[in-house]
């Protein structure tokens, strides 16, 4: 009978384990490789030159002279952090931003900034407070022939029309033109989603609606790889997350495990001690009787 | 020679029914308790209409569980006090037949109380509870309580602490019944689509069958001289 029980338990264990193992094999789908650090995680951009260091993720696309860099900075103010980041990256002084706004995304409030720097450099920066630091994701484009900017907008009512109107409005703000007659072209499907494409004179605008937010990319001058740039920046943005710090909860949980196991084992010892005490008393009584 | 199963069940059931018709002890106590419980709940919760709709299925099932605890305890205690248990054990009948007989009696009495509560709560709470699906849920749920309760009451009535032990033994085991039945009832009363409350109702039926089968198999071990 004991054999049977043992066999049943073993069979059950075996069934469970095979289940877990097969699942583990199924579960390992190809997943975008991630740049991982204590401070943040972002997807590694395939096809881009990886210049990342210990505490920052940096990817460079030579043909577009574009750089996407993610890091955290010690400045407390997101705008100050963004400008310090730009100063560090380009050694150019940041003028007042050509576009500045704030969006509430699922992980917090991001500042959205676009700067037109000297030497035909355009910088789009998103920054938000993350714990005691500021996370900064910057997109820098140095191509003298083109001006490329990317930004994120939050739209309130969730309709595509409002989203595209906002995109066009944002594009006009960025391009510093009067209300434009952008024409909608066919949309393109990229890894980050389905983007709407608008074309105007010397200008291409792309927009992506993702959840409650819309993402806009704009390129002026020589038209080139806007789709690749917009896609890469948005994959970084959408894939960005900070590993939560919950070591205290882990410590608490482990403490609970040890307390309960300790209580279980301790109760065995405690009852054993009581038992020995009783036996000693009984033995003494028996001896006294004799 | 053992008495045939069905005959034996019928004999025990008719004994219980006749005793109840004469004394009206079980149903009246359970019904009075239920009425008081429903009133107490409505005072304690001071419900407006919206809250009543939310709470009514919970009140219904909690009341039914406590009423049935009362009934099962009393019904087994009677058997014991009158020495019926011992004589049934001496008689050449299968234990399962005794179980089914007692179970049907407990089921019928509790169901009567439940069916009385429905129009009562309809009046007091201003919600229409007289719905075919609610009654079906009630039949299945009460059958589940009764199948567990009959077995556990047989156990606890043979201990010294008797009445005190049945709630401790029964409440955790009937919680799955309570949860599924209350969810199904709530879904039916709120007019939710059938798909939403058929899940809990089906689960209620499944647990009911599992426990009934187990109790039938195990009953012989709780009735020992």
């Amino acid at each position, binding site marked *: *009978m004991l054999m049977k*029980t043992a066999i049943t*338990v073993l069979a059950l*264990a075996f069934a*469970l384990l095979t289940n*877990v*193992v097969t*699942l*583990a094999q199924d*579960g*390992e789908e190809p*997943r975008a490789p991630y740049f991982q650090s204590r401070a943040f*995680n972002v997807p590694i951009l395939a096809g881009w030159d990886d210049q990342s260091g210990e505490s920052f993720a940096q990817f460079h696309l030579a043909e577009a002279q574009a750089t996407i860099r993610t890091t955290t900075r010690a400045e407390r103010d997101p705008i100050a952090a963004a400008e310090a980041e730009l100063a560090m990256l380009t050694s150019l002084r940041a003028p007042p931003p050509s576009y500045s706004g704030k969006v509430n995304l699922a992980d917090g409030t991001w500042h959205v900034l676009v700067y037109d720097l000297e030497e035909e450099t355009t910088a789009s920066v998103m920054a938000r407070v993350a714990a005691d630091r500021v996370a900064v994701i910057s997109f820098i484009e140095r191509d003298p022939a083109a001006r490329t900017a990317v930004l994120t907008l939050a739209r309130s009512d969730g309709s595509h029309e409002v989203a595209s109107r906002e995109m066009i409005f944002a594009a006009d703000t960025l391009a510093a033109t009067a209300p434009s007659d952008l024409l909608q072209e066919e949309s393109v499907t990229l890894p980050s989603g389905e983007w709407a494409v608008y074309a105007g004179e010397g200008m291409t605008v792309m927009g992506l609606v993702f959840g409650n937010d819309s993402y806009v990319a704009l390129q002026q001058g020589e038209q080139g790889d806007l789709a690749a740039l917009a896609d890469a920046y948005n994959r970084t943005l959408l894939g960005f997350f900070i*590993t*939560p*710090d*919950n*070591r205290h*909860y*882990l410590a608490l*949980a*482990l403490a*609970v*495990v040890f307390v*309960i*196991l300790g*209580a*279980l084992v301790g109760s*065995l010892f405690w*009852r*054993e001690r009581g*038992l*020995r005490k*009783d*036996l000693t008393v*009984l033995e003494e009584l028996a001896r006294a009787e*004799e | 020679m053992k008495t045939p199963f069905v005959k034996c069940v019928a004999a025990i059931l008719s004994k219980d029914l006749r005793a109840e018709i004469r004394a009206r002890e079980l149903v009246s106590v359970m019904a009075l308790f239920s009425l008081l419980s429903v009133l107490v709940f409505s005072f304690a919760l001071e419900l407006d209409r919206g809250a009543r709709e939310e709470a009514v299925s919970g009140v219904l099932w909690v009341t039914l569980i406590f009423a049935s605890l009362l009934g099962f305890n009393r019904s087994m205690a009677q058997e014991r006090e009158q020495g019926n248990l011992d004589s049934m054990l001496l008689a050449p009948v299968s234990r399962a037949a005794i179980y089914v007989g007692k179970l049907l009696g407990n089921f019928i009495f509790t169901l009567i109380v439940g069916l009385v509560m429905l129009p009562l709560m309809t009046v007091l709470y201003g919600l229409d509870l007289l719905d075919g699906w609610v009654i079906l849920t009630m039949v299945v749920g009460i059958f589940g309580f009764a199948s567990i309760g009959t077995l556990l009451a047989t*156990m606890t009535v*043979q*201990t010294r*602490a008797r009445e*005190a*032990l049945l709630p*401790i*033994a029964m*409440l*955790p*085991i009937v*919680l*799955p019944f309570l*949860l599924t039945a209350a969810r199904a009832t709530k879904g039916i009363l709120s007019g939710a689509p059938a798909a939403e409350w058929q*899940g*809990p109702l089906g*689960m209620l039926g499944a*647990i009911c069958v599992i*426990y009934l089968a*187990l109790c039938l198999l*195990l009953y012989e*071990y*709780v009735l020992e001289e």
Partner: protein
Amino acid sequence: MADKAKSLPGELRIEGPPQPRALRLLTVVTVLGFAATLVLGLGLAGVDIQQGEIQRIFYIHMPSFFGAFTAFGLTVAGGLLYLARKSEKWDRIALAGVEVGLAFSLINLLTGAIWARPIWNTWWTWDPRLTSAAIMCLTYAAYLMLRAGIEDAGRRRAFMSVYGILAFVTVLITLFIIRIVPETIHPMIVGASPQKAQGSFEATSGVVIALIPSLLLWLTLMPITIIWHRVRLEERMEALHRLKMQALSE
């Protein structure tokens, strides 16, 4: 006098009967194994970048449920064997199974709650699986209370065997409820997670390397070793009880 002490049955000697070598070995292996699974889970397995460090508690959370499953399963086996053979040793196993299983399921419940706080942003939610796990704990707590309330030893053993078998239904409900009521938000590691699951993570090779030894340990060695010790203690306690009764009746 010395002869009399020697003639006492082992359970009644103060130091107790000598531990079988198998039990000593089992105890050492279990303790070392527990330490090893901690090293694997807390050290060697990588950090889950989505959930952070708290994900490591999973290497105890899920195995502890299966430890409880084994312990409660032994209670069922002990109960069935007791009802069939009427030998007290099976009842001792059943009782030990409940005590150990209850401790393990408490570990399961509490580690789950502590995990849920940072991941679901709440300590507790009335999710089907959480609810049924709580019912399971309550049922076995009721087992211990009920057991203490029955005086007659023979009846206690028979009744508690029955109750131990009935109570196992709550374990099975907890195990299978994800498949019965798929609206749970509890992630499922074995099989595809339900649509609404929140806080699931990929069973990558690192996870499996840390999980499988832990699962094996909690499924077999942990409950069996502690139950064995508990059964031996119960033997001694019953022997002492009989001795006391005897002394009183003399």
